[in-house]
C-alpha cells in the first residue's frame, strides 16, 4: 500500500443556481491578465449544452483522456513517438475560436465622440487585435439556452437517447436543464501530466494538486489536447500553458479556494481523501462498467486502524489523517455514495464529484397545472422528463441504475425531512424508502445537515499544510529569511 492524500471536491448540483460567482472570483484572482483573458479555469455550463470550449466532451474532435488499448492504458492523443511530431502542429488542439475571442468595449468613444445626431455607442473591441469585432460567442453564451438548436441539441451526451425522448426534453414549457460548474479535476491519473513532453505538468505529492511549472513549460501544448475536460489552457502571450491551481496559496493558509469560498449557493465542498496509489494503474484500466465502483474502491477508510498505520508509515501527518476523517467529501462519496465523478469513462480518476440534480424528478405541466403528486413511491424518478440516461452519460459512464440509486437516496432524505417537519407522509412510505435505499433516519439527517445547514468549517475541511512549512514546500526556508510573499522571480514580459 502506498497511501497518499488527495484534496478532493464535491459539487452539489441541486443547489447550483448558475450565477457564475465562482467563475468571477477565479477570474479576478488568477486570469485577469493579457493572454489569459479567454481562460475560465472555473466555468459554469448549462446542460444539455455544448459547453466551453464548445463540444469539449467530444473526444472524436479533441482526442483527450485515456483509452484502453489491450492490457495497457494509452493516451488518446498520441503519446510518445507520434506525439513528438505533433509538436510542430497539433491537429487536435482547440484554437481560440473554439473558446471565444475575448473582447472589451470602446468606452472612450462615449466621451470623445463628436457631436452628432445619434447617441454614441461603445463598440466591442477584440482584446487580441484591438480591432472592432462582432461577438459570436462567449464562455457562458449558452446560459439558460437549453432547448435551442445551437447548444442543447448538439450535446454529445444525447447520442444514445432516442429521438422521442430528446424531443420531449426540448418541448416548450417542458424543457429541462441544469447547471454544471466545472474546474480542474486534479485527477489521480492525470492525462495532462502524462502528455507533457517537457515534464512541466506534475502532481504535487503532499496534497495531490496538479500544477504546471511555468519555468519548465515550453509551450508544446500537448496538455491542452490531452486533458479530456479541456481545463489546461494555452496563454497566447507568454507561450506557456496554465491551469487551475486549486488556489494552493490559499489552501496552504487554511482558506478555501476562491471559487468555493465565494459560492453563494454553498454547493461546494472540499476535503481530504486518502487513497492507495498502487491501485491507480489497475483501476484506471478496468472495464467501463466497473469504473465508478473501482474508483470508489481506491479511496480508503480513514478510520481503519490499518489505513492509519500505513498512512503514518508513509509520512502522512496526523493532522491530515484527522482532516480525512472529518472530510465532507468522504461522506458524500464513500459513506453515502451520492456523489459521482464527471465522465469517468475518460479514465483519469477525477477528484471532483457531483451530486446529480433532482431536476428530472420535479413535476410536469399538464393543462396549465403544475403536477407533482404521484401514487408510486419512485414514480417521478422512473418516468422523469429528463431521461435518467442523460445524467448517466454525464456522471456514471452510462450506468443509469447508479443515477437512480442516488436520486432515490436524495428523495428519501426529502421524504424523511418532510415527515419530520410537516408530518404528512405515510410511515410505510418512509420505511419502504429507507429499506430500499439502505439509509437510516440518522444518515438522512446527516445528509440533510451537510447539504443545507453546514457552515464554512464543515464544508471545507482543509488539511493543514502547516504554514510554517508551506514555503518549505517550495524552497528552503533559510533562503527566504527576511523575504515575504511568493511569485514569479522574473517578469512574465516577453524578453526575446
Amino acid at each position, binding site marked *: 500500500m502506498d497511501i497518499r492524500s488527495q484534496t478532493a471536491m464535491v459539487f452539489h448540483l441541486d443547489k447550483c443556481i448558475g450565477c457564475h460567482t465562482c467563475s468571477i472570483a477565479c477570474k479576478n484572482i488568477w486570469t485577469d491578465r493579457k493572454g489569459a483573458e479567454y481562460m475560465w479555469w472555473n466555468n459554469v455550463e448549462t446542460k444539455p449544452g455544448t459547453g466551453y470550449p464548445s463540444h469539449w466532451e467530444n473526444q472524436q474532435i479533441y482526442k483527450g483522456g485515456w483509452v484502453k488499448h489491450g492490457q495497457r492504458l494509452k493516451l488518446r492523443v498520441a503519446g510518445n513517438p507520434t506525439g513528438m511530431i505533433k509538436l510542430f502542429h497539433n491537429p487536435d488542439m482547440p484554437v481560440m475560436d473554439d473558446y471565444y475571442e475575448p473582447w472589451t468595449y470602446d468606452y472612450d468613444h462615449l466621451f470623445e465622440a463628436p457631436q452628432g445626431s445619434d447617441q454614441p455607442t461603445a463598440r466591442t473591441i477584440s482584446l487580441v487585435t484591438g480591432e472592432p469585432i462582432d461577438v459570436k460567442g462567449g464562455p457562458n453564451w449558452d446560459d439558460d439556452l437549453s432547448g435551442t438548436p445551437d447548444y442543447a441539441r448538439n450535446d454529445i451526451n444525447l447520442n444514445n437517447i432516442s429521438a422521442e425522448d430528446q424531443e420531449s426534453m426540448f418541448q416548450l414549457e417542458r424543457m429541462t436543464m441544469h447547471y454544471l460548474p466545472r474546474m480542474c479535476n486534479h485527477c489521480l491519473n492525470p492525462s495532462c501530466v502524462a502528455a507533457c513532453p517537457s515534464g512541466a505538468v506534475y502532481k504535487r505529492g503532499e496534497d495531490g494538486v496538479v500544477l504546471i511549472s511555468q519555468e519548465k513549460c515550453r509551450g508544446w501544448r500537448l496538455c491542452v489536447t490531452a486533458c479530456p475536460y479541456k481545463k489546461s489552457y494555452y496563454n*497566447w502571450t507568454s507561450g506557456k500553458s496554465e491551469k487551475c491551481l486549486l488556489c494552493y496559496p490559499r489552501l496552504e493558509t487554511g482558506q478555501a479556494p476562491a471559487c468555493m469560498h465565494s459560492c453563494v449557493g454553498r454547493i461546494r465542498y472540499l476535503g481530504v481523501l486518502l487513497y492507495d496509489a498502487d491501485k491507480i494503474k489497475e483501476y484506471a484500466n478496468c472495464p467501463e462498467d466497473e469504473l465508478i465502483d473501482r474508483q470508489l474502491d481506491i479511496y480508503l477508510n480513514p478510520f481503519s486502524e490499518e489505513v492509519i498505520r500505513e498512512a503514518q508509515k508513509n509520512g502522512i501527518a496526523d493532522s491530515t489523517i484527522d482532516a480525512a476523517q472529518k472530510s465532507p467529501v468522504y461522506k458524500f462519496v464513500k459513506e453515502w455514495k451520492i456523489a459521482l465523478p464527471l465522465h469517468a469513462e475518460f479514465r483519469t480518476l477525477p477528484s471532483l464529484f457531483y451530486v446529480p440534480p433532482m431536476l428530472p424528478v420535479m413535476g410536469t405541466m399538464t393543462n396549465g397545472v403544475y403536477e407533482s403528486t404521484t401514487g408510486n413511491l419512485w414514480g417521478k424518478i422512473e418516468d422523469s422528463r429528463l431521461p435518467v440516461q442523460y445524467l448517466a452519460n454525464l456522471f456514471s459512464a452510462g450506468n443509469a441504475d447508479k443515477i437512480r440509486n442516488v436520486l432515490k437516496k436524495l428523495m428519501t432524505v426529502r421524504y424523511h425531512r418532510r415527515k419530520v417537519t410537516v408530518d404528512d407522509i405515510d410511515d410505510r412510505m418512509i420505511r419502504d424508502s429507507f429499506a430500499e435505499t439502505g439509509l437510516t433516519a440518522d444518515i438522512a439527517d446527516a445528509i440533510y445537515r451537510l447539504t443545507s445547514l453546514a457552515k464554512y468549517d464543515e464544508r471545507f475541511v482543509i488539511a493543514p499544510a502547516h504554514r510554517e512549512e508551506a514555503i518549505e514546500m517550495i524552497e528552503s526556508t533559510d533562503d527566504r529569511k527576511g523575504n515575504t510573499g511568493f511569485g514569479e522571480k522574473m517578469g512574465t514580459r516577453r524578453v526575446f
Partner: protein
Amino acid sequence: MINSFLLIGLPYAAILIFLIGSILRYYYYGYSVTSHSSQFLESNKLFWGSRLFHSGIVVLLTGHLIGFLLPKSIIILTSMPLWLMVIEVSAFAFGIISFIGIVLLIIRRITVKRLHRVTSTMDLVVYFLLFIQVLSGLLVAYFHRWGTSWYATALVPYLKSIFTLTPDISVITTMPLLIKGHAISAFAFLGLIPFTRLMHFLVYPVNYLRRRVQLVIWNRDLRESRASRKMREGIKPRNN
C-alpha cells in the same frame, strides 16, 4: 582582411555567443525559453507552413551534420553516380519543401492580423534570415551542382579547421560568393539563436521518450519530516 573577419572572426564570435548565450539564457532566463507557438491563434495555415518547414529543415540540418561528421563515408558514397544522384535530388526536394514552408509561414505572419500581436522584432529577423538561408541553399544547390560531394571535400575541412582552433580559409576564399554567403549567414544565424525563440530546438523534449508516465513531485520528504528529531531539515511541527 574582410575574408578573415567574415570567415574566421565571425564564426568564432558566433560560436562563443551561441554557447555562452544559450547557457546563460537557459539558466537565468529559463522562463523565456518556449516555442511561443501561435497555433492557438491560427491553426489551419500553420499546418502546412510548420509541418513542411520543420520536416524539410530537420532533414537538411541532419544532412549537413552527417556530412560534417563523416566526410569520408560521404565522399565514398557520392563517388557512385547513382547514390550521388539520389542524395542530391532528395536534398534538393527537402530544400524545396522547407522553402515552401517558410514562404507559407511568412505569408501567414503577414496576413493573419491576430499574429501581429505576438510577433516580436526578433521574430521578423529570424524569418528574414531563415528565408535567406533556405533560398541561398537552394541557389547553391542549383548553380553549383553536386554540393553533397564538394561540401565533404572542400567545405568540411574549413569547418573542421574552425572547430580545431586552426582556422584555414585558403579553400573557402576561392569559392563562389553564393557559397561564402550561405556559410557566413549560417554563422550569423548561430550567433542569434540565444536572442530569439529558436532556443526552442535546444529544449526539444527527447527525455519524454524514456520518462515515467506520471510525474509526482514531493516538495519535502514526508517520511523524513515525520520521523525527524533534527532541528533544521524536516522540522517536526508541534501538532503532528
